[in-house]
């Protein structure tokens, strides 16, 4: 049951914010959980899966976020409490179904949608603020935990609230909450498991409208959402104990904040030696207007701190226009707080110091030390792991196209293999979002350019969003080559299984969805499966496929090297033997360093020869096939 499923109420333990969400769901009696992996959200479903069997919970890695939401909502129609998780990119995939579940009705079981935003985009391709979708598009309540303790409590509460308001509840996490670790106290785990029973609640609504209007009326549905549900939600928000107002500081300045920013403010105020009236929001939507009104009528200026958009700020502005027009609302819209990026205590201190007329913090002068460091700052570049099959795949495609004298147009997708776009491989020049490689390749191939087009997509991403893009391409006779980088897992987010892995989130053996058959069924004419670890053979394979000039798919199949090593370790096996460079035989051509770029191979400038770090080498033997002098050999032990 893992450390998070331990049934010891009162036990104090160290949990990551994401683990705390999973524990909150367990303490709420949640029985169904679905997610597609994505940093910073992946640990939530992983943690639920770690104790799922012990508590009669079904936990699944879904193939994408849309189907995860459908699955989760389906369980609520059988009376189960259900948890659906994604990162902010993922909620974009849920938009249509989530609007419908919000306008119509979920089942008798509560539905909690936990979305992990990534202010600063630490592990994402943008930092958009998904609260805008939740409030403006889905029109459902938003809870915003500040730390792991609150992540557990608010998740638990969200199920109850969902059943009270009969709508999905949005728990908005951010990277600094999801990936913060802190002390959390375990609560009770409910022992009763209500019997599953199918009951399609929306049918009541449908009947109600048919009796009233003779047909279902979408405007009535929307009206009901506004006049009934959002009003009830606003009452909840006003009475919510997590929305607290403290009236310190004598009335000049008020502060409003949500999420982790609340802690930054407490620290900043203490460092500045200042006091303010402070409205802290754990439930940021709907705005608790009574508390907001009390704050607005006690101060002259209010400054809002939140990540990343001026979401609360706009709500407050709109409310204050009538409720307290004399109060100045400061924040992102007025240039008083940063318009993008995550907040820090320093950013908060600077903004507060300005508004309060206090001195800004200064930092010690470390110019000399920083000057010494500067030339070395870029020495550890982000790169594919040693032994990564993607590096070999990128190298193979580059060599094959060079041999053919072809300059291809490459489009990338979302996953570890995004790094194939970096030097030295430079496999592609465009990337968008999940499935975008095949999607854009279609348009590029139909645009009348001469160069062959290649779309590079991972196996998990292909199952997620590549399939409809590929069907669209063959349907419209777009001729290009799809390159599926099949490493058997969802590598980037922590090796989660997908339909090609043969097992599921709960570790059960399941049927494999055959990738070759799937690609063929999508209408691809030429399908070639290659092992990227056989470099010469693969180069010939790529040349053969490209020469046919048909709608083609190359599947580079080889297990993720990091996952492979983890599995060996689990089985008690030693890692494969590392290689070394025979210093006599190395002619210093640098092909292994400059063209292949494995992090285990470095360049010794003093003797002008390549060197392999035996601690980093994973024994994949790819470099031995690249070395023209056959100078790379296994370390004999």
């Amino acid at each position, binding site marked *: 049951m893992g450390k998070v499923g331990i049934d010891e109420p009162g036990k104090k333990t160290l949990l990551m914010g994401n683990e705390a969400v999973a524990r909150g769901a367990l303490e709420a009696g949640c029985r169904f959980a679905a997610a597609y992996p994505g940093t910073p959200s992946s640990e939530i479903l992983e943690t639920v899966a770690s104790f799922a069997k012990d508590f009669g919970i079904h936990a699944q890695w879904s193939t994408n976020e849309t189907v995860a939401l459908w699955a989760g909502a389906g369980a609520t129609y059988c009376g189960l409490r259900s948890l659906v998780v994604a990162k902010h990119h993922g909620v974009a995939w849920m938009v249509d179904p989530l609007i419908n579940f919000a306008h119509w009705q979920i089942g008798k079981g509560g539905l909690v949608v936990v979305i992990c935003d990534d202010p600063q985009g630490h592990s994402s391709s943008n930092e958009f603020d998904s609260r805008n979708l939740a409030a403006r598009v889905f029109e459902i309540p938003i809870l915003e935990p500040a730390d792991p303790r609150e992540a557990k409590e608010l998740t638990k509460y969200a199920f109850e609230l969902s059943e009270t308001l009969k709508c999905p509840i949005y728990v908005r996490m951010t990277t600094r909450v999801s990936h913060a670790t802190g002390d959390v106290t375990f609560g009770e785990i409910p022992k009763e498991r209500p019997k599953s029973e199918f009951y399609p609640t929306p049918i009541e609504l449908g009947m109600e409208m048919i009796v009233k209007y003779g047909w279902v009326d979408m405007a009535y549905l929307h009206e009901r959402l506004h006049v009934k549900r959002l009003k009830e939600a606003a009452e909840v928000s006003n009475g919510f104990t997590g929305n607290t107002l403290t009236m310190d500081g004598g009335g000049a300045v008020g502060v409003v904040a949500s999420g982790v920013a609340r802690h*930054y403010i407490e620290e900043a105020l203490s460092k500045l030696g200042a006091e303010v009236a402070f409205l802290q929001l754990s439930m940021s939507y709907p705005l608790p207007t009574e508390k907001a009104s009390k704050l607005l009528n006690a101060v002259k200026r209010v400054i809002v701190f939140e990540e990343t958009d001026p979401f609360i700020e706009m709500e407050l502005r709109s409310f204050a226009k009538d409720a307290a027009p004399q109060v100045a609302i400061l924040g992102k819209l007025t240039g008083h707080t940063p318009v993008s990026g995550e907040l820090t205590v320093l950013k908060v201190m600077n903004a507060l110091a300005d508004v309060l007329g206090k001195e800004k913090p200064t930092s010690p002068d470390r110019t000399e030390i920083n000057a010494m460091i500067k030339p070395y700052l870029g020495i550890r570049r982000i790169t594919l792991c040693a032994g990564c099959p993607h590096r070999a795949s990128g190298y193979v495609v580059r060599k094959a196209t060079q041999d053919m004298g072809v300059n291809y147009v490459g489009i990338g997708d979302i996953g570890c293999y995004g790094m194939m776009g970096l030097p030295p491989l430079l496999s592609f020049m465009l990337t968008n979002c999940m499935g975008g490689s095949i999607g854009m390749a279609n348009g590029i191939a139909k645009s009348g350019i001469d160069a062959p087009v290649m779309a590079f997509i991972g196996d998990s991403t292909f199952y997620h969003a590549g399939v409809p893009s590929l069907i669209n391409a063959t349907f419209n006779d777009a001729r290009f080559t799809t390159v599926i980088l099949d490493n058997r897992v969802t590598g980037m987010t922590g090796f989660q299984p997908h339909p090609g892995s043969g097992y599921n989130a709960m570790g059960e053996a399941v049927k494999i969805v055959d990738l070759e058959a799937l690609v063929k069924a999508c209408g691809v004419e030429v399908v070639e499966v290659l092992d990227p670890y056989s470099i010469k053979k693969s180069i010939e394979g790529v040349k053969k496929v490209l020469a046919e000039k048909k709608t083609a798919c190359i599947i580079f199949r080889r297990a993720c090297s990091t996952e492979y090593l983890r599995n060996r370790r689990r089985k008690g096996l030693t890692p494969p033997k590392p290689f070394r460079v025979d210093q006599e035989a190395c002619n210093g051509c640098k092909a292994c360093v400059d063209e292949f770029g494995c992090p285990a191979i470095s360049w010794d400038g003093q003797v002008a020869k390549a060197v392999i770090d035996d601690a980093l080498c994973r024994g994949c033997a790819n470099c031995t096939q690249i070395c023209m002098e056959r100078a790379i050999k296994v370390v004999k032990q």
Partner: protein
Amino acid sequence: MSHTFDFIFAGIGGQGSVAASHMIGDAAIEAGYRVAIGETHGAGQRGGAVLSHVRLWKEGSFGPLIMDAEADAVIGFEPFESLKSAARFLKPGGTVVTNEHPVLPSNRNYPEMDAIFANLKKIPARVFAVNATQIAKEVGDVAALNIAVLGAASGSGMLLIPEEFLKKIITGYFPKSAELSLKAFDLGKRLVAERV
């Protein structure tokens, strides 16, 4: 609002710095502290620098990020990473405990070791060093590097947490290889030396 004790854990992906920061967190709970640890996961981990912020306190509540030039100590698993983190996060007069074994980048562009230690002293800081990589090899498991660094941190006297709490947590983390891990801890503690 009371104050916090702030530690930065600085290393490279795969060195076990995040696990070590969680061991400190667990031991701190045993010792009666509240804890917040901040870190970023994801792509940045693949061979890149890994940084954890560890904050311990008794009263109040705090976020997971330490302000620049406010950390009480930097616990480093690689010398240049220790310097980088200390230059940004260490308060003047703070403590650095670092592994002295470097991990070279693939182009071998790496500063002189003397320059690293001289600049650490300029912060100014008390600097303690130990060859944790060597200790890990000696005890027979390269993965024990992080435990050797924890031992060194304990030996430097800068950790707030009593040794017995740490050893209890380490034993719990590695039930099968506790003896080996505790040996790495003790060697780190014994061999750590202040650079003056």
